[in-house]
Protein backbone atom coordinates (compact mmCIF):
# COMPACT_ATOMS: atom_id res chain seq x y z
CA UNK A 1 0.00 0.00 0.00
CA UNK A 2 2.72 2.36 1.01
CA UNK A 3 4.84 1.58 -2.04
CA UNK A 4 1.82 1.83 -4.33
CA UNK A 5 0.83 5.02 -2.71
CA UNK A 6 4.41 6.09 -2.89
CA UNK A 7 4.64 5.06 -6.51
CA UNK A 8 1.34 6.78 -7.40
CA UNK A 9 2.28 9.82 -5.39
CA UNK A 10 5.55 10.16 -7.24
CA UNK A 11 3.76 9.79 -10.61
CA UNK A 12 1.17 12.41 -9.61
CA UNK A 13 3.89 14.83 -8.57
CA UNK A 14 5.76 14.52 -11.84
CA UNK A 15 2.59 15.06 -13.90
CA UNK A 16 1.59 18.09 -11.84
CA UNK A 17 5.03 19.52 -12.13
CA UNK A 18 5.02 18.99 -15.88
CA UNK A 19 1.67 20.72 -16.06
CA UNK A 20 2.85 23.69 -14.03
CA UNK A 21 6.01 23.87 -16.05
CA UNK A 22 4.01 23.87 -19.24
CA UNK A 23 2.01 26.87 -18.03
CA UNK A 24 4.80 28.90 -16.50
CA UNK A 25 7.57 28.12 -18.87
CA UNK A 26 5.63 28.17 -22.11
CA UNK A 27 8.10 28.10 -24.93
CA UNK A 28 8.41 31.55 -26.46
CA UNK A 29 8.64 32.56 -30.03
CA UNK A 30 12.05 33.55 -31.18
CA UNK A 31 12.54 37.30 -31.48
CA UNK A 32 15.90 37.23 -33.17
CA UNK A 33 14.75 39.57 -35.91
CA UNK A 34 13.71 42.28 -33.41
CA UNK A 35 16.05 44.87 -32.00
CA UNK A 36 17.65 44.03 -28.72
CA UNK A 37 17.36 46.60 -25.97
CA UNK A 38 20.62 48.25 -25.12
CA UNK A 39 21.29 51.74 -23.89
CA UNK A 40 24.27 54.03 -24.49
CA UNK A 41 27.52 52.82 -22.99
CA UNK A 42 29.09 55.73 -21.18
CA UNK A 43 32.20 53.72 -20.51
CA UNK A 44 33.10 54.60 -24.03
CA UNK A 45 34.86 57.96 -23.81
CA UNK A 46 34.39 58.60 -27.48
CA UNK A 47 30.62 57.99 -27.39
CA UNK A 48 29.76 61.63 -28.03
CA UNK A 49 26.43 63.00 -29.11
CA UNK A 50 26.28 60.96 -32.28
CA UNK A 51 26.80 57.70 -30.42
CA UNK A 52 24.16 58.57 -27.86
CA UNK A 53 21.65 59.53 -30.53
CA UNK A 54 22.37 56.30 -32.30
CA UNK A 55 21.55 54.35 -29.17
CA UNK A 56 18.11 55.96 -28.79
CA UNK A 57 16.31 53.50 -31.04
CA UNK A 58 17.34 50.59 -28.87
CA UNK A 59 16.75 52.19 -25.48
CA UNK A 60 13.01 51.61 -25.31
CA UNK A 61 9.85 53.60 -24.55
CA UNK A 62 9.80 57.10 -26.00
CA UNK A 63 13.51 57.05 -26.71
CA UNK A 64 12.78 54.33 -29.23
CA UNK A 65 10.04 56.42 -30.74
CA UNK A 66 12.47 59.29 -31.00
CA UNK A 67 14.96 56.99 -32.63
CA UNK A 68 12.29 55.99 -35.14
CA UNK A 69 11.44 59.63 -35.71
CA UNK A 70 15.10 60.28 -36.49
CA UNK A 71 14.98 57.51 -39.06
CA UNK A 72 11.84 58.90 -40.66
CA UNK A 73 13.31 62.39 -40.91
CA UNK A 74 16.50 60.99 -42.40
CA UNK A 75 14.40 59.23 -44.98
CA UNK A 76 12.65 62.53 -45.70
CA UNK A 77 15.98 64.20 -46.24
CA UNK A 78 17.48 61.37 -48.30
CA UNK A 79 14.58 60.77 -50.64
CA UNK A 80 15.06 61.75 -54.25
CA UNK A 81 12.75 61.35 -57.18
CA UNK A 82 15.37 59.18 -58.79
CA UNK A 83 14.51 56.47 -56.27
CA UNK A 84 11.01 56.15 -57.70
CA UNK A 85 10.03 54.51 -60.92
CA UNK A 86 8.97 57.09 -63.49
CA UNK A 87 5.21 57.20 -63.78
CA UNK A 88 3.61 56.38 -67.11
CA UNK A 89 2.37 59.86 -67.97
CA UNK A 90 5.45 61.88 -67.14
CA UNK A 91 7.08 63.84 -69.90
CA UNK A 92 10.61 64.01 -71.28
CA UNK A 93 11.87 66.65 -68.90
CA UNK A 94 10.86 64.56 -65.92
CA UNK A 95 12.78 61.56 -67.16
CA UNK A 96 16.08 63.40 -67.06
CA UNK A 97 18.15 61.72 -64.33
CA UNK A 98 19.73 64.95 -63.20
CA UNK A 99 16.32 66.49 -62.69
CA UNK A 100 15.14 63.44 -60.79
CA UNK A 101 18.18 63.64 -58.57
CA UNK A 102 17.39 67.22 -57.70
CA UNK A 103 13.79 66.70 -56.65
CA UNK A 104 13.60 66.41 -52.89
CA UNK A 105 10.88 65.86 -50.33
CA UNK A 106 8.77 68.85 -49.36
CA UNK A 107 8.90 69.35 -45.63
CA UNK A 108 6.13 71.06 -43.66
CA UNK A 109 7.17 72.28 -40.21
CA UNK A 110 4.50 73.16 -37.66
CA UNK A 111 4.97 74.37 -34.11
CA UNK A 112 3.07 76.12 -31.34
CA UNK A 113 3.77 79.56 -29.82
CA UNK A 114 5.24 78.35 -26.56
CA UNK A 115 8.12 76.75 -28.43
CA UNK A 116 9.02 80.06 -30.01
CA UNK A 117 9.00 81.64 -26.54
CA UNK A 118 11.47 78.96 -25.51
CA UNK A 119 14.92 78.33 -26.90
CA UNK A 120 13.55 76.12 -29.67
CA UNK A 121 13.19 79.35 -31.62
CA UNK A 122 16.92 79.20 -32.28
CA UNK A 123 16.67 75.63 -33.57
CA UNK A 124 13.88 76.73 -35.91
CA UNK A 125 15.99 79.65 -37.01
CA UNK A 126 18.78 77.25 -37.94
CA UNK A 127 16.42 75.21 -40.10
CA UNK A 128 14.94 78.24 -41.82
CA UNK A 129 18.27 79.96 -42.29
CA UNK A 130 19.59 77.05 -44.30
CA UNK A 131 16.34 76.47 -46.19
CA UNK A 132 15.90 73.01 -44.77
CA UNK A 133 12.11 73.27 -44.56
CA UNK A 134 9.70 74.37 -47.25
CA UNK A 135 6.52 75.52 -45.48
CA UNK A 136 5.97 76.74 -41.93
CA UNK A 137 2.65 76.85 -40.08
CA UNK A 138 2.34 78.32 -36.61
CA UNK A 139 -0.05 80.23 -34.38
CA UNK A 140 -0.06 83.99 -33.70
CA UNK A 141 2.26 83.78 -30.73
CA UNK A 142 4.78 81.96 -32.88
CA UNK A 143 5.08 85.09 -34.97
CA UNK A 144 5.09 87.78 -32.34
CA UNK A 145 7.31 86.01 -29.82
CA UNK A 146 10.04 85.79 -32.44
CA UNK A 147 9.75 89.51 -33.20
CA UNK A 148 9.59 90.47 -29.54
CA UNK A 149 12.74 88.51 -28.78
CA UNK A 150 14.56 90.84 -31.15
CA UNK A 151 13.32 93.83 -29.15
CA UNK A 152 13.74 92.52 -25.61
CA UNK A 153 14.77 89.24 -23.98
CA UNK A 154 12.74 86.51 -22.30
CA UNK A 155 13.90 85.34 -18.89
CA UNK A 156 13.94 82.07 -17.00
CA UNK A 157 11.42 81.84 -14.19
CA UNK A 158 9.65 79.00 -12.45
CA UNK A 159 6.31 77.24 -12.77
CA UNK A 160 5.56 77.93 -9.14
CA UNK A 161 5.90 81.73 -9.16
CA UNK A 162 2.66 83.23 -7.76
CA UNK A 163 0.51 84.91 -10.37
CA UNK A 164 -0.69 87.90 -8.39
CA UNK A 165 2.86 88.83 -7.44
CA UNK A 166 4.00 88.61 -11.04
CA UNK A 167 1.09 90.75 -12.20
CA UNK A 168 2.01 93.45 -9.71
CA UNK A 169 5.53 93.46 -11.12
CA UNK A 170 4.39 93.55 -14.71
CA UNK A 171 5.82 90.12 -15.53
CA UNK A 172 3.95 87.61 -17.66
CA UNK A 173 4.60 83.93 -17.12
CA UNK A 174 4.79 81.36 -19.91
CA UNK A 175 5.40 78.09 -18.11
CA UNK A 176 8.72 78.74 -16.42
CA UNK A 177 9.65 81.66 -18.63
CA UNK A 178 9.05 85.28 -17.76
CA UNK A 179 8.16 87.99 -20.25
CA UNK A 180 8.21 91.58 -19.00
CA UNK A 181 5.34 93.84 -20.08
CA UNK A 182 7.97 96.26 -21.36
CA UNK A 183 8.69 93.88 -24.21
CA UNK A 184 5.11 94.17 -25.38
CA UNK A 185 5.26 97.95 -25.06
CA UNK A 186 8.35 97.93 -27.27
CA UNK A 187 6.56 95.64 -29.72
CA UNK A 188 3.61 98.02 -29.81
CA UNK A 189 5.91 100.93 -30.51
CA UNK A 190 7.64 98.99 -33.28
CA UNK A 191 4.63 97.57 -35.04
CA UNK A 192 2.28 100.58 -35.18
CA UNK A 193 4.20 102.46 -37.89
CA UNK A 194 4.47 99.23 -39.88
CA UNK A 195 0.70 98.77 -39.73
CA UNK A 196 0.19 102.39 -40.80
CA UNK A 197 2.44 101.80 -43.77
CA UNK A 198 0.64 98.58 -44.65
CA UNK A 199 -2.68 100.37 -44.59
CA UNK A 200 -1.34 102.92 -47.05
CA UNK A 201 -0.09 100.21 -49.38
CA UNK A 202 -3.38 98.36 -49.33
CA UNK A 203 -5.36 98.51 -52.54
CA UNK A 204 -7.74 96.35 -54.56
CA UNK A 205 -4.77 94.78 -56.33
CA UNK A 206 -2.59 94.41 -53.28
CA UNK A 207 -4.67 92.77 -50.56
CA UNK A 208 -2.90 91.68 -47.40
CA UNK A 209 -3.02 88.07 -46.31
CA UNK A 210 -1.57 86.63 -43.10
CA UNK A 211 1.43 85.19 -44.94
CA UNK A 212 2.10 88.51 -46.66
CA UNK A 213 1.80 90.36 -43.37
CA UNK A 214 4.25 87.93 -41.78
CA UNK A 215 6.64 88.29 -44.69
CA UNK A 216 6.51 92.04 -44.28
CA UNK A 217 7.13 91.83 -40.54
CA UNK A 218 10.08 89.55 -41.21
CA UNK A 219 11.47 92.09 -43.62
CA UNK A 220 10.96 94.97 -41.22
CA UNK A 221 12.57 93.31 -38.22
CA UNK A 222 15.79 92.87 -40.19
CA UNK A 223 17.51 90.89 -37.44
CA UNK A 224 19.51 87.75 -38.12
CA UNK A 225 18.43 86.10 -34.89
CA UNK A 226 14.82 86.04 -36.08
CA UNK A 227 13.52 83.07 -38.04
CA UNK A 228 10.95 85.27 -39.75
CA UNK A 229 13.74 87.37 -41.19
CA UNK A 230 15.28 84.26 -42.73
CA UNK A 231 11.90 83.02 -43.88
CA UNK A 232 11.40 86.27 -45.75
CA UNK A 233 14.90 86.15 -47.14
CA UNK A 234 14.67 82.54 -48.31
CA UNK A 235 11.11 82.94 -49.57
CA UNK A 236 9.72 80.34 -47.22
CA UNK A 237 6.00 80.99 -46.68
CA UNK A 238 4.76 81.14 -43.09
CA UNK A 239 1.04 80.48 -42.73
CA UNK A 240 -0.94 81.58 -39.70
CA UNK A 241 -4.70 81.59 -40.22
CA UNK A 242 -5.37 82.78 -36.67
CA UNK A 243 -3.06 85.79 -36.82
CA UNK A 244 -5.31 87.88 -34.60
CA UNK A 245 -5.17 85.48 -31.66
CA UNK A 246 -2.23 87.05 -29.90
CA UNK A 247 -0.50 90.33 -29.22
CA UNK A 248 -0.59 91.05 -32.94
CA UNK A 249 -4.37 90.89 -32.70
CA UNK A 250 -4.33 93.43 -29.88
CA UNK A 251 -2.15 95.70 -31.95
CA UNK A 252 -4.44 95.34 -34.95
CA UNK A 253 -7.39 96.18 -32.71
CA UNK A 254 -5.82 99.33 -31.28
CA UNK A 255 -4.59 100.33 -34.71
CA UNK A 256 -8.02 99.87 -36.25
CA UNK A 257 -9.65 102.23 -33.77
CA UNK A 258 -7.50 105.10 -34.99
CA UNK A 259 -6.87 104.05 -38.58
CA UNK A 260 -9.61 101.68 -39.64
CA UNK A 261 -9.60 99.88 -42.93
CA UNK A 262 -6.81 97.30 -42.85
CA UNK A 263 -8.12 94.04 -44.34
CA UNK A 264 -6.35 90.71 -43.99
CA UNK A 265 -7.69 88.03 -46.32
CA UNK A 266 -7.56 84.48 -44.98
CA UNK A 267 -9.22 82.98 -48.04
CA UNK A 268 -6.26 83.68 -50.27
CA UNK A 269 -3.95 82.10 -47.73
CA UNK A 270 -5.95 78.90 -47.47
CA UNK A 271 -5.72 78.57 -51.24
CA UNK A 272 -1.96 79.08 -51.13
CA UNK A 273 -1.51 76.58 -48.29
CA UNK A 274 -3.57 73.89 -49.97
CA UNK A 275 -1.80 74.54 -53.24
CA UNK A 276 1.50 73.91 -51.48
CA UNK A 277 0.33 70.39 -50.78
CA UNK A 278 -1.56 69.71 -53.97
CA UNK A 279 1.07 70.97 -56.36
CA UNK A 280 3.89 69.31 -54.48
CA UNK A 281 3.71 66.29 -56.79
CA UNK A 282 6.03 64.70 -58.00
CA UNK A 283 7.74 65.58 -54.73
CA UNK A 284 6.89 63.56 -51.67
CA UNK A 285 5.74 65.46 -48.60
CA UNK A 286 6.85 65.08 -45.02
CA UNK A 287 5.36 66.71 -41.94
CA UNK A 288 7.17 67.49 -38.71
CA UNK A 289 4.72 68.81 -36.15
CA UNK A 290 5.68 70.03 -32.69
CA UNK A 291 2.73 70.37 -30.37
CA UNK A 292 -0.93 70.25 -31.28
CA UNK A 293 -3.66 72.75 -31.97
CA UNK A 294 -3.97 74.81 -35.08
CA UNK A 295 -0.55 74.16 -36.67
CA UNK A 296 -1.01 70.39 -36.45
CA UNK A 297 -4.44 70.33 -37.97
CA UNK A 298 -3.76 72.92 -40.65
CA UNK A 299 -0.79 71.01 -42.03
CA UNK A 300 -2.50 67.63 -41.93
CA UNK A 301 -5.60 69.05 -43.53
CA UNK A 302 -3.65 70.48 -46.44
CA UNK A 303 -1.95 67.14 -46.98
CA UNK A 304 -5.32 65.45 -47.04
CA UNK A 305 -5.92 67.14 -50.36
CA UNK A 306 -3.06 65.21 -51.89
CA UNK A 307 -4.28 61.94 -50.36
CA UNK A 308 -1.87 62.04 -47.47
CA UNK A 309 1.64 62.93 -46.48
CA UNK A 310 4.33 60.36 -47.14
CA UNK A 311 6.28 60.90 -43.94
CA UNK A 312 5.03 62.15 -40.58
CA UNK A 313 6.61 62.89 -37.23
CA UNK A 314 4.58 64.22 -34.30
CA UNK A 315 6.28 65.41 -31.12
CA UNK A 316 3.77 66.35 -28.45
CA UNK A 317 2.55 65.52 -24.99
CA UNK A 318 -1.17 65.43 -25.77
CA UNK A 319 -3.22 62.33 -25.10
CA UNK A 320 -5.95 60.85 -27.26
CA UNK A 321 -8.41 59.81 -24.56
CA UNK A 322 -10.42 63.04 -24.88
CA UNK A 323 -10.79 62.67 -28.62
CA UNK A 324 -8.93 65.90 -29.33
CA UNK A 325 -7.12 66.36 -32.58
CA UNK A 326 -4.06 67.51 -30.68
CA UNK A 327 -3.76 64.16 -28.94
CA UNK A 328 -4.71 62.08 -31.93
CA UNK A 329 -2.25 59.44 -33.03
CA UNK A 330 -0.98 59.37 -36.58
CA UNK A 331 -3.15 56.36 -37.25
CA UNK A 332 -6.23 58.52 -36.73
CA UNK A 333 -4.87 60.85 -39.40
CA UNK A 334 -4.52 57.85 -41.72
CA UNK A 335 -8.24 57.25 -41.31
CA UNK A 336 -8.88 60.77 -42.59
CA UNK A 337 -6.48 60.45 -45.47
CA UNK A 338 -4.15 63.01 -43.98
CA UNK A 339 -1.27 60.53 -43.89
CA UNK A 340 -0.81 57.81 -46.51
CA UNK A 341 -1.61 54.28 -45.49
CA UNK A 342 1.78 53.17 -46.78
CA UNK A 343 3.61 55.66 -44.60
CA UNK A 344 5.29 54.81 -41.32
CA UNK A 345 4.42 57.79 -39.11
CA UNK A 346 5.88 58.20 -35.65
CA UNK A 347 4.55 59.97 -32.57
CA UNK A 348 6.99 60.83 -29.82
CA UNK A 349 5.27 61.49 -26.50
CA UNK A 350 7.76 64.01 -25.26
CA UNK A 351 8.14 67.70 -24.57
CA UNK A 352 9.49 69.14 -27.78
CA UNK A 353 12.07 71.20 -25.91
CA UNK A 354 13.89 67.93 -25.18
CA UNK A 355 13.07 65.86 -28.24
CA UNK A 356 13.39 68.40 -31.03
CA UNK A 357 17.00 69.50 -30.46
CA UNK A 358 18.02 65.85 -30.32
CA UNK A 359 16.07 65.17 -33.50
CA UNK A 360 17.67 68.07 -35.36
CA UNK A 361 21.13 67.13 -34.11
CA UNK A 362 20.77 63.63 -35.51
CA UNK A 363 19.24 64.65 -38.82
CA UNK A 364 19.40 68.19 -40.19
CA UNK A 365 22.50 69.35 -38.35
CA UNK A 366 24.29 66.07 -38.96
CA UNK A 367 23.72 66.33 -42.71
CA UNK A 368 24.50 70.03 -42.79
CA UNK A 369 27.83 69.74 -41.01
CA UNK A 370 28.59 66.39 -42.56
CA UNK A 371 28.24 67.89 -46.01
CA UNK A 372 30.59 70.72 -45.09
Amino acid at each position, binding site marked *: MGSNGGGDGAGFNTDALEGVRAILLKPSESLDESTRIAGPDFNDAGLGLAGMLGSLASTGFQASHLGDAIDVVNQMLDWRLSQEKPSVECDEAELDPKYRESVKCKIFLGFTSNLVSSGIRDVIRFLVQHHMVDVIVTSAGGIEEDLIKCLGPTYRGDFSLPGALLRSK*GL*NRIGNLLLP*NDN*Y*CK*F*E*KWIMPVLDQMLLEQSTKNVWTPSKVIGRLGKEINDESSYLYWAHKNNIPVYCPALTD*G*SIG*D*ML*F*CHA*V*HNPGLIIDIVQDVRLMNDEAIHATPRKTGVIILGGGLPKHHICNANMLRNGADYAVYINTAQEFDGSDSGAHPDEAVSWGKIKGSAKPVKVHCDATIAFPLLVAATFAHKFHGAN
Partner: protein
Amino acid sequence: KFKLNSLILAGLLCIRFRKPIYPVRYLSLCPRRRSRRPTVAPANSSRENFWVLIRGEEMSDSEEHQFESKADAGASKTYPQQAGTIRKNGYIVIKNRPCKVVEVSTSKTGKHGHAKCHFVAIDIFTGKKLEDIVPSSHNCDVPHVNRTEYQLIDISEDGFVSLLTDNGNTKDDLKLPTDETLLGQIKDGFAEGKDLVVSVMSAMGEEQINALKDISATSNLPC
Protein backbone atom coordinates in the same frame (compact mmCIF):
# COMPACT_ATOMS: atom_id res chain seq x y z
CA LYS B 1 34.24 147.44 -15.72
CA PHE B 2 30.76 148.52 -14.74
CA LYS B 3 29.78 148.71 -18.36
CA LEU B 4 30.95 145.14 -18.86
CA ASN B 5 28.97 143.93 -15.87
CA SER B 6 25.89 145.75 -17.11
CA LEU B 7 26.30 144.33 -20.54
CA ILE B 8 26.49 140.83 -19.14
CA LEU B 9 23.48 141.42 -16.92
CA ALA B 10 21.64 142.93 -19.86
CA GLY B 11 22.42 139.90 -21.92
CA LEU B 12 21.14 137.54 -19.24
CA LEU B 13 17.96 139.55 -18.78
CA CYS B 14 17.44 139.58 -22.53
CA ILE B 15 17.41 135.82 -22.46
CA ARG B 16 15.10 135.76 -19.45
CA PHE B 17 12.54 138.27 -20.57
CA ARG B 18 12.99 137.77 -24.27
CA LYS B 19 12.95 141.45 -24.87
CA PRO B 20 15.75 143.70 -25.99
CA ILE B 21 17.44 145.15 -22.91
CA TYR B 22 20.01 147.87 -23.11
CA PRO B 23 22.29 149.23 -20.41
CA VAL B 24 21.94 153.01 -20.43
CA ARG B 25 23.46 155.67 -18.24
CA TYR B 26 20.93 156.85 -15.74
CA LEU B 27 21.81 160.52 -16.10
CA SER B 28 21.25 160.44 -19.80
CA LEU B 29 17.76 159.26 -19.19
CA CYS B 30 16.14 161.81 -17.06
CA PRO B 31 14.73 164.27 -17.65
CA ARG B 32 14.66 163.98 -21.42
CA ARG B 33 13.17 160.68 -22.46
CA ARG B 34 9.94 160.04 -20.78
CA SER B 35 8.68 157.32 -23.08
CA ARG B 36 11.07 154.77 -21.76
CA ARG B 37 10.83 153.74 -18.17
CA PRO B 38 13.82 152.41 -16.38
CA THR B 39 13.23 149.06 -14.80
CA VAL B 40 15.87 146.97 -13.13
CA ALA B 41 18.10 147.93 -10.21
CA PRO B 42 21.27 149.84 -11.01
CA ALA B 43 24.58 148.15 -11.41
CA ASN B 44 26.43 150.29 -8.87
CA SER B 45 25.66 152.83 -6.20
CA SER B 46 27.28 155.95 -7.61
CA ARG B 47 24.70 158.21 -9.17
CA GLU B 48 26.76 159.40 -12.07
CA ASN B 49 27.76 156.03 -13.10
CA PHE B 50 24.39 154.47 -12.93
CA TRP B 51 23.90 151.91 -15.54
CA VAL B 52 20.38 151.03 -15.67
CA LEU B 53 18.87 148.28 -17.60
CA ILE B 54 16.06 149.35 -19.84
CA ARG B 55 13.50 147.17 -21.37
CA GLY B 56 13.49 148.03 -25.00
CA GLU B 57 10.36 148.53 -26.99
CA GLU B 58 9.03 145.66 -28.95
CA MET B 59 8.87 145.70 -32.68
CA SER B 60 5.33 144.50 -32.45
CA ASP B 61 2.44 146.74 -31.67
CA SER B 62 1.81 146.11 -28.01
CA GLU B 63 3.83 144.64 -25.23
CA GLU B 64 0.96 143.78 -23.04
CA HIS B 65 -1.10 140.68 -23.46
CA GLN B 66 -4.63 141.20 -24.48
CA PHE B 67 -7.11 138.81 -23.03
CA GLU B 68 -8.91 137.31 -25.94
CA SER B 69 -12.62 137.03 -25.59
CA LYS B 70 -13.90 133.52 -25.50
CA ALA B 71 -16.17 134.16 -28.42
CA ASP B 72 -13.28 134.34 -30.86
CA ALA B 73 -10.91 131.95 -29.12
CA GLY B 74 -8.38 131.47 -31.87
CA ALA B 75 -5.95 129.06 -30.30
CA SER B 76 -7.72 127.85 -27.20
CA LYS B 77 -10.65 125.78 -28.44
CA THR B 78 -9.21 122.76 -26.65
CA TYR B 79 -6.73 122.09 -23.94
CA PRO B 80 -4.64 118.98 -23.40
CA GLN B 81 -5.32 116.64 -20.52
CA GLN B 82 -3.82 113.28 -19.71
CA ALA B 83 -6.07 110.47 -20.91
CA GLY B 84 -5.93 108.64 -17.59
CA THR B 85 -7.54 111.63 -15.81
CA ILE B 86 -10.58 112.01 -18.07
CA ARG B 87 -13.66 110.61 -16.34
CA LYS B 88 -17.23 109.80 -17.24
CA ASN B 89 -19.33 112.87 -18.04
CA GLY B 90 -16.24 114.80 -18.95
CA TYR B 91 -15.51 116.06 -22.45
CA ILE B 92 -13.07 114.81 -25.04
CA VAL B 93 -12.24 115.46 -28.68
CA ILE B 94 -12.51 112.37 -30.90
CA LYS B 95 -11.80 112.62 -34.64
CA ASN B 96 -12.01 116.41 -34.29
CA ARG B 97 -15.53 116.32 -32.82
CA PRO B 98 -16.30 117.53 -29.29
CA CYS B 99 -17.88 114.67 -27.36
CA LYS B 100 -19.20 113.93 -23.91
CA VAL B 101 -17.72 110.82 -22.33
CA VAL B 102 -20.27 108.13 -21.57
CA GLU B 103 -17.97 105.24 -20.63
CA VAL B 104 -14.34 104.86 -19.69
CA SER B 105 -12.57 101.55 -19.21
CA THR B 106 -8.87 101.13 -18.61
CA SER B 107 -6.74 98.09 -19.28
CA LYS B 108 -3.41 97.83 -17.52
CA THR B 109 -0.12 97.36 -19.32
CA GLY B 110 0.07 93.89 -20.71
CA LYS B 111 0.18 91.86 -23.88
CA HIS B 112 -1.49 94.68 -25.78
CA GLY B 113 1.24 97.14 -24.87
CA HIS B 114 0.95 100.20 -22.67
CA ALA B 115 -2.02 100.82 -20.36
CA LYS B 116 -4.92 102.10 -22.40
CA CYS B 117 -8.11 104.02 -21.81
CA HIS B 118 -11.09 103.07 -23.92
CA PHE B 119 -13.53 105.95 -24.29
CA VAL B 120 -17.09 105.72 -25.53
CA ALA B 121 -18.43 109.22 -26.09
CA ILE B 122 -21.35 110.95 -27.74
CA ASP B 123 -20.87 113.91 -30.08
CA ILE B 124 -22.49 116.82 -28.30
CA PHE B 125 -23.88 118.28 -31.50
CA THR B 126 -24.83 115.31 -33.67
CA GLY B 127 -25.50 112.72 -30.98
CA LYS B 128 -23.40 110.07 -32.75
CA LYS B 129 -21.48 107.53 -30.72
CA LEU B 130 -17.71 107.67 -31.16
CA GLU B 131 -15.00 105.50 -29.67
CA ASP B 132 -11.33 105.93 -29.06
CA ILE B 133 -8.49 104.01 -27.47
CA VAL B 134 -5.67 106.11 -26.09
CA PRO B 135 -2.60 105.15 -24.04
CA SER B 136 -3.24 106.45 -20.50
CA SER B 137 -0.06 108.50 -20.42
CA HIS B 138 -0.86 110.37 -23.63
CA ASN B 139 -2.57 113.72 -23.71
CA CYS B 140 -6.02 114.06 -25.18
CA ASP B 141 -7.65 117.24 -26.34
CA VAL B 142 -10.52 118.36 -24.17
CA PRO B 143 -12.82 120.96 -25.70
CA HIS B 144 -13.81 124.14 -23.91
CA VAL B 145 -17.57 123.79 -23.65
CA ASN B 146 -19.50 126.96 -22.79
CA ARG B 147 -23.13 127.32 -21.98
CA THR B 148 -24.77 130.66 -22.39
CA GLU B 149 -28.36 131.59 -21.93
CA TYR B 150 -30.20 133.92 -24.24
CA GLN B 151 -33.75 135.06 -24.41
CA LEU B 152 -35.62 133.99 -27.52
CA ILE B 153 -36.91 136.95 -29.48
CA ASP B 154 -37.95 135.60 -32.85
CA ILE B 155 -37.91 132.64 -35.16
CA SER B 156 -37.36 133.46 -38.83
CA GLU B 157 -38.89 131.75 -41.87
CA ASP B 158 -35.73 129.91 -42.90
CA GLY B 159 -35.11 128.39 -39.49
CA PHE B 160 -32.84 130.95 -37.87
CA VAL B 161 -33.52 132.26 -34.38
CA SER B 162 -33.09 135.73 -33.07
CA LEU B 163 -31.72 135.86 -29.54
CA LEU B 164 -31.18 138.67 -27.05
CA THR B 165 -27.65 138.83 -25.65
CA ASP B 166 -26.52 140.21 -22.27
CA ASN B 167 -25.52 143.57 -23.62
CA GLY B 168 -28.75 144.12 -25.47
CA ASN B 169 -27.62 143.07 -28.95
CA THR B 170 -29.27 140.43 -31.01
CA LYS B 171 -27.67 137.22 -32.09
CA ASP B 172 -29.08 135.93 -35.36
CA ASP B 173 -26.69 133.34 -36.64
CA LEU B 174 -28.06 130.31 -34.85
CA LYS B 175 -30.34 127.81 -36.52
CA LEU B 176 -33.10 125.93 -34.83
CA PRO B 177 -31.95 122.67 -33.24
CA THR B 178 -32.41 119.44 -35.18
CA ASP B 179 -33.65 117.48 -32.15
CA GLU B 180 -37.36 117.02 -32.76
CA THR B 181 -38.66 117.28 -29.22
CA LEU B 182 -36.70 120.44 -28.55
CA LEU B 183 -37.71 121.91 -31.89
CA GLY B 184 -41.34 121.19 -31.14
CA GLN B 185 -41.07 122.78 -27.71
CA ILE B 186 -39.48 125.94 -29.09
CA LYS B 187 -41.96 126.38 -31.91
CA ASP B 188 -44.97 125.65 -29.77
CA GLY B 189 -43.77 127.80 -26.89
CA PHE B 190 -42.99 130.68 -29.19
CA ALA B 191 -46.31 130.40 -31.00
CA GLU B 192 -48.13 130.54 -27.68
CA GLY B 193 -46.32 133.74 -26.86
CA LYS B 194 -44.36 132.37 -23.88
CA ASP B 195 -41.11 133.97 -22.76
CA LEU B 196 -38.44 131.42 -23.55
CA VAL B 197 -34.82 131.36 -22.51
CA VAL B 198 -32.62 129.06 -24.55
CA SER B 199 -29.37 127.58 -23.38
CA VAL B 200 -26.75 127.57 -26.14
CA MET B 201 -23.81 125.20 -25.94
CA SER B 202 -20.71 126.18 -27.83
CA ALA B 203 -17.52 124.21 -28.40
CA MET B 204 -14.80 124.25 -31.03
CA GLY B 205 -16.43 126.92 -33.10
CA GLU B 206 -19.84 125.28 -33.26
CA GLU B 207 -22.95 126.33 -31.43
CA GLN B 208 -26.28 124.73 -30.88
CA ILE B 209 -29.35 125.22 -28.75
CA ASN B 210 -29.58 122.31 -26.39
CA ALA B 211 -32.07 123.31 -23.71
CA LEU B 212 -35.10 125.47 -23.16
CA LYS B 213 -36.63 127.25 -20.19
CA ASP B 214 -40.00 128.81 -19.89
CA ILE B 215 -39.79 131.99 -17.79
CA SER B 216 -43.19 133.45 -18.45
CA ALA B 217 -44.34 132.61 -14.94
CA THR B 218 -41.51 134.47 -13.17
CA SER B 219 -40.99 138.18 -13.49
CA ASN B 220 -37.36 138.32 -12.32
CA LEU B 221 -35.58 138.40 -15.63
CA PRO B 222 -35.47 141.61 -17.62
CA CYS B 223 -37.57 141.74 -20.80
